[in-house]
């Protein structure tokens, strides 16, 4: 027997999963409530004790962990043009599993640097200019960042002609600077993997230590990555067998949307515009969630539309939102409360998917009708994975996804329309992402067995 322990340190829950690596059997899953104030090892000990109750005493061969505790990996991205290197920087950070707290474009002002100092990011990503292109902006921003009196590492992924110089400016000011390849080496070509690799290395080396997670060392052989990166990894591995897929992770405060597909046009006569999309893409909706961001859902669509997603009156919806404000841990009990929560969840998924997916618009040219697509076409994606406590525990996850995909409110959106819903019942996606680092085939087989 070769048991492997997989741990996910979350901001509110620590989840532990035990897997038998020879047979690919899921031995048990446990979770325990953790608070930021408490030592994070308490949460792990509780989860392990619960797990032991399920599996009996085990000698783990390997122990891996991912973490989104202590606010996750908080990053700031900066670039030159908003729709180009700024956007590329943001995508690189999101794909690396970071929480992007702010994105800047053009030259940083004094106000910006003051704001960066106040935000105190874990890592700052400095981009700008294609290779051999604009270097003035990145150099100016390096100077501006060097002047900030805060110690955070800077990943330099700008125009290669000035990257070294930027790093020198930063190191001269005592800042750690790591130079990597440009996120946009040529115009409109995205090159985010080298940058993401560096972000992960910095995360392992510096951030884990700073967040007091290094005390876990005796319990864990290594914290491998931020939790969202583990989920993205799991989905990528799964898509090798299942083909193109999407995933929704609906949380209390944010909603993460993933898509693993090229997303090329499916309609004839379509011109693709804008920055190329990463094959494995993650977006985060910071204003969309079931509890802390419930009002964000309301603001995104309005009360009338929110209610149209369930059998409920506007008064009831307002009452439910008010109760959520009072108690973020509230669970729906009465039928009308369940309806209200259903509407909230369906709308959150719908808004998240619509923002993640691309759009298509008709263009009338003198040569006739043509279509212009920006972003990914997900209309033909066959599977949509649903994860996150808010979805898993409703027992209606598949129904929610169908409702969200059937929306008529985004006629130009290329969001998934007919995907089959797959529910991550035992909450194993992040654990499987970790496991895939150890044994890719095993993780794949287990996911297919567990999910389908």
């Amino acid at each position, binding site marked *: 027997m070769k048991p492997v322990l997989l741990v996910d340190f979350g901001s509110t829950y620590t989840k532990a999963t035990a897997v038998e690596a020879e047979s690919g059997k899921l031995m048990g899953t446990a979770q325990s409530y953790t608070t930021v104030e408490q030592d994070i090892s308490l949460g792990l000990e509780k989860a392990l004790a619960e797990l032991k109750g399920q599996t009996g005493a085990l000698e783990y061969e390997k122990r891996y962990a991912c973490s989104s505790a202590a606010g996750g990996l908080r990053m700031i991205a900066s670039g030159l043009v908003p729709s180009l290197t700024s956007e590329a920087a943001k995508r690189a950070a999101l794909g690396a599993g970071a929480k992007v707290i702010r994105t800047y474009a053009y030259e940083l002002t004094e106000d910006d640097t003051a704001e960066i100092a106040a935000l105190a990011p874990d890592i700052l990503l400095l981009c700008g*200019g294609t290779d051999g*292109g*604009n270097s003035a902006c990145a150099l100016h921003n390096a100077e501006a960042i060097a002047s900030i009196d805060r110690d955070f590492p800077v990943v330099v992924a700008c125009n290669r002609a000035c990257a070294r110089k930027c790093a020198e400016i930063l190191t001269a000011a005592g800042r750690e600077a790591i130079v990597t390849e440009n996120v946009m080496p040529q*115009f409109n070509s995205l090159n985010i993997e080298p940058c993401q690799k560096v972000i992960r290395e910095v995360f392992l080396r510096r951030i884990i230590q700073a967040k007091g997670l290094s005390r876990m060392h005796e319990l864990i052989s290594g914290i491998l990555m931020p939790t969202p990166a583990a989920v993205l990894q799991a989905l990528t591995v799964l898509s090798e067998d299942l083909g193109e897929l999407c995933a929704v992770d609906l949380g209390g405060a944010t909603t993460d949307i993933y898509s693993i597909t090229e997303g090329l046009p499916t309609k004839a006569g379509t*011109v693709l515009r804008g920055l190329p999309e990463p094959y494995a893409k993650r977006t985060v909706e910071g204003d969309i969630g079931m509890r802390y961001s419930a009002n964000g859902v309301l603001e995104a669509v309005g009360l009338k539309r929110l209610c149209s997603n369930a059998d409920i009156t506007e008064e009831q919806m307002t009452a439910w939102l008010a109760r959520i404000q009072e108690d973020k841990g509230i669970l729906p009990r009465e039928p009308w409360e369940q309806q209200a929560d259903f509407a909230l969840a369906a709308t959150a998924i719908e808004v998240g998917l619509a923002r993640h997916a691309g759009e298509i618009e008709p263009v009338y*040219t*003198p040569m006739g009708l*043509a279509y212009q697509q920006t972003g990914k076409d997900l209309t033909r994606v066959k599977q949509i994975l649903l994860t996150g406590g808010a979805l898993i525990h409703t027992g209606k996850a598949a129904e929610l996804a169908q409702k969200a995909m059937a929306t008529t409110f985004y006629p130009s959106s290329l969001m998934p329309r007919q995907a089959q819903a797959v529910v991550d019942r035992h909450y194993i996606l992040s654990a499987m992402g970790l496991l895939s680092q150890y044994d890719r085939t095993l993780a794949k087989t287990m996911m297919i067995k567990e999910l389908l």
Partner: protein
Amino acid sequence: MAERRMVLGVIGADVHAVGNQILNYAFTEAGFSVVNLGVMVSQEEFIEAAIESDAKAIVVSSLYGHGELDCRGLREKCDEAGLKGILLYVGGNIVVGKQPFEEVEKRFKAMGFDKVFGPGTPPEVTIEALKKDFELLEAQA
């Protein structure tokens, strides 16, 4: 010598892709570093590409007759975006119907274009003009 970089594209709702490919090939062969945006390019896209790639010239094509409407305000937007003095070239079937080229040239120069080329201009002519203008810029630098 630094690379001579330029942005190339067909402006507006124009989907004429063949001429764009020929120009891309000809300019690249002539030694320019071409950022080709292809067809259906908006003014904003030309400008954003020029900023990010630090290009010294924007070469706009138009073949469908609506060029005059599409090009209006490009120079002002370039100034606004900090691309003061960037070379602006335009060429093709840039106006509606057959009009005397001198008048057309005058109108486009008044719009802020440095060089205006009529229908059927061989790429060599544009390349010569670009080389001269780049030399002037490099002499100033």
